[in-house]
């Protein structure tokens, strides 16, 4: 299939197209993403929706966002319907996962992918990329939870101030900790936007702790 070929080429070109890891943190391009899943079991569950926003350095491009609902192959589990407020009939009209994945690949280009507990999102996305193209995503990946944890360990004043706080490292706990406003309704896009704002705050702390390049960031923030 011609479309799949194009998509494969895109994935391959990420390797040559990604920027040097020696560039400053502020000069790198990021895609901050979040997925909503029917559950956490990678064998049985599937992606319901993907949301993502682009960042250039510490600046969030509000106009460049990505949000797709997916027509699921797995049965929607009852619990997630309650959580996400998305009904099976809504999803049935949506494009199948393959189409969404190839659009996502397009959207991400060679940017660094950022997520909160990114291993989970990337696990599901990776599975779909493999199923579609029989390939692996080549983008570099960062995990905001790991960066946060590192900052906590390495920033004396931070750990003094925040040590007593709960160990809850969910996205919303971090949002609270970093004073990121959280509105009521949630979907993959709004959560990606919250993740991006948390990431923005994390990035503003790092230079003070001696981290300046993408290389430094990857060292501490891999999922």
């Amino acid at each position, binding site marked *: 299939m011609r479309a799949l070929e194009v998509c494969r080429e895109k994935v391959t070109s990420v390797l040559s197209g990604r920027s040097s890891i020696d560039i400053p943190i502020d000069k790198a391009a990021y895609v901050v993403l979040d997925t909503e899943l029917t559950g956490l079991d990678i064998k049985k569950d599937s992606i319901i929706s993907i949301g993502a926003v682009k960042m250039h350095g510490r600046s969030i491009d*509000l*106009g460049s966002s990505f949000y797709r609902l997916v027509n699921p192959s797995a049965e929607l589990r009852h619990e997630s319907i309650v959580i996400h407020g998305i009904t099976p009939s809504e999803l049935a009209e949506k494009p199948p996962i393959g189409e969404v994945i190839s659009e996502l690949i397009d959207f991400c280009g060679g940017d660094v992918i950022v997520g909160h507990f990114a291993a989970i999102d990337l696990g599901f996305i990776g599975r779909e990329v493999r199923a579609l193209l029989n390939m692996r995503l080549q983008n570099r990946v960062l995990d905001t939870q790991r960066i946060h944890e590192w900052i906590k360990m390495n920033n004396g004043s931070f750990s003094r101030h925040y040590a007593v706080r709960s160990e809850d490292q969910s996205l919303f706990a971090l949002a609270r900790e970093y004073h990121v406003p959280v509105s009521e309704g949630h979907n993959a896009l709004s959560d990606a*936007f919250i993740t991006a*704002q948390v990431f923005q705050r994390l990035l503003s702390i790092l230079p003070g702790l001696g981290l300046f390049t993408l290389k430094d960031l990857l060292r501490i923030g891999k999922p």
Partner: protein
Amino acid sequence: MIIEDVIGFLKKAQPFQSLDEITLRNLATNVSMELHPRGSLILQQDGPPSDYLRIIKKGSVKVFMKTGDGDEIIIDYRGEGESFGMLSLVGGDKSRANVIATEDTICYLLKKDFIIKLLDTNAAFTEFFLKSYFNKFIDKTYVEMRNKSVLFSGGDKVLFTTMLSELISRDVVTAPQDATIKEVAEVMSRSSISSLVLVDPEGNVPVGIVTDRDLRDKVVAKARNVNDPISTIMSVSLIKADAHDYCFEALLKMIRYNIHHLLVVDRGKLAGVVTNHDLMMLQGISPLSISREIEIQKSIEGLIPASKKINKIIDLLVKEGAKASNVTRVITEINDRLVRRMLEITEMKLGPPPVPYCWIAFGSEGRSEQTFRTDQDNAIIYDDPKTDEEREKAKSYFLNFALDMKDALIKCGFPPCPANYMASNPRWCQPLSVWKDYFAKWIEHPTPEAVLFSLIFFDFRPISGNAILAHKLRSYLGHILKGQNIFLASMAGALLKNRPPLGFFGTFVLQKKGEHKDELNIKENGIGIIVGAARLFALEKGVASTSTLERLRDLKDKHPVLTELGEELEQVFEFLMSLRLHHQFDQISRGIEPDNYINPDDLGALERNTLKESFKLLSRIYDSISEEYKPGMVGQL
């Protein structure tokens, strides 16, 4: 949904609210968002220009400039919904000022191309920025000239409706381009000018300009032959405007190239020169030009037109987004000048006074907190006459004088005081010794009337005449107040009559019925509490200043409550004053008599919350006063 939030935000932010839905959406989809941690320098003076207009989504910034000798001139504080970076964006050469985040600040960034396009196509948009930025910036050159005094000029529609051709001075001194350096220098010296335009004698087309500086740097310093043609040293890059351009375009050019003079050409030929000063004067309602107009008047009738312009100044200052304290300062300055000129004119009419006197104002005028025209609140203190004859003479002279002043003030739009607190009332036109007796009696016997008088008169401030008389009275007051705890408790009691309108659960307490149902009185239950607290503490601690903000600052190290809360209280005062100013401004522009009643539902969410927070602080002040000034408690802290 992210975009919807941006659109929703822009719809509330000036001047974007004037844009149509499609433009807004287009703008919003190109917005990026940045976080600037507290203390970070966002733009640096003389640093690279900004490629974005930044609108503050949350947080606040300070805009300031450093002068050549290292002084810091604060241009502005900007908060949520306000923007910065416009000048450097338009100028494109460098940043005009430093911008620093005073708290963690989130900004929406709008791309330069979009803003330039909007400036070119949307008149309302351009006008807004012209007013809020460009004038402020132009003022700064005057601020530097006038030793940092605060001076505002107003931008007005006139800038958009007047062509340069109507404004330019036509007698520009020129010289032919083939003149020698010596000849040109002679012309400049003869005409006492610091720059001169060189023209092609055939068609009067400007070809270059030479300035004092060129003569110094390129001729004297280089020992160049003064018989060389002037064309060897002139600057050929002329910045010109067309006579058919509107004035604001000239203003934009001046800002863009950082110059104060602009050549104006008409069909290629030199037509004249326009300066930024001309543009300010054109607006005719700058405080500076009103002050001048006041100074030159010879009669009370002559002062009437100038006094009518004062409300226009308020209008402009409010539209420009000036802080309330700056508005009141400018208005006080102009009103003072107006009254001084009236006094001079009246003295000329009645002959010199038999003994020295001082004209004092009290109430809001005494506190330098006037905004829209308020009632007359004034009195005369005159030097104690030495003989009975002098006494009679002084009595009749000053009473006549005060009656003339009362009429003059009425003519210029200051209505008489309904309670007759005016110098024309013989009771308030007295020698210093009588004033001292008044004050001493009020303090000794704080009857309700005495307390009322004290609240009003103790804010007195000398306006004109022999200020020493007022200072003597002030220091006498300080002296006799010492240890007068019962009096201070009575003053506190008067203050505690009005509670901050916040209920037990932190909700607004509103009027339950009547004309102002669901509204609250921001003067009585807000501003008045701060004014009263500042006055009370100032009297207790012997602080002589009368303006509320000055009192709060002067008391910072003297009164424990203000050491803790003084700064917050200053901000709250500023906020409430500006809320009232905007409210009254809005009423006046709708032809309604201004009042002090505000409906919290008419406010934006942000203002409403700030108002609530403000009242919370006032409740703390209120509680600490009621605790501290219980009879017998004064002076315990």
